[in-house]
């Protein structure tokens, strides 16, 4: 997994949450540590879907709780769209 992609994801989430990128550690829990609510969560999901032309099923959203999981979840989907 490329560092560039991780950085891209970090910056994107940081912009939406309006928090400094350095606070977004790979394992910081979105809900417990960063206080993300349903509005921020849907904003992040919609931004990913638009940028990478992927669909994130609703039932998967609660399972993606930190930056590491976002990268792990979205990287394969992103790859598929380029085949």
């Amino acid at each position, binding site marked *: 997994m490329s560092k560039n992609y991780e950085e891209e994801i970090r910056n994107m989430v940081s912009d939406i949450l309006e928090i400094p990128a350095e606070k977004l550690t790979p394992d910081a829990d979105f809900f417990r540590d960063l206080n993300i609510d*349903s*509005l921020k969560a*849907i*904003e992040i*999901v*919609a931004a990913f879907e638009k940028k990478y032309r992927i669909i994130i099923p609703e039932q998967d*959203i609660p399972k993606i709780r930190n930056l590491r999981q976002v990268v792990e979840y979205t990287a394969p989907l992103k790859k598929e769209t380029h085949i």
Partner: protein
Amino acid sequence: MRWDKAKIQSVLPHREPFLFIDEVIEVEGTERIVAATYLREEASYFKGHFPGNPVMPGVLIIEAMAQASVILFSLDRPEVAAGHPDYYLGKVKSEFLAPAYPGDKLIVESRKVKFLDNAAITETVVKVDERVIAKANLIFSIQKK
């Protein structure tokens, strides 16, 4: 398929004088709806906004966009809407391009961006006589009772 006031009120909790959708004139599955709002000269907000120079307040145009978006949400998530949840507008990115006056007919178009059971995003456009007078991206939450 047109919706009259009764059908609109079966979905929206809003009532006069804070109901800003008079009819739904077009439904495109669960992706897009087009609604209409008639700006009546006797509406109370025109009396104070502004005396002698009545203009529809921009926040009420956003309210019309939000109400149209709730109707669209109810088409996409009928099982959630059936529980008559509370809808809370959370974030608005808007642009106003021209004023709306008494007598105007607002055409309010709402398009789905992303809907979940507890949150929704729509892109909305308001037109008067085919001219776009306002645009907004709305994010709202849905709280089950």
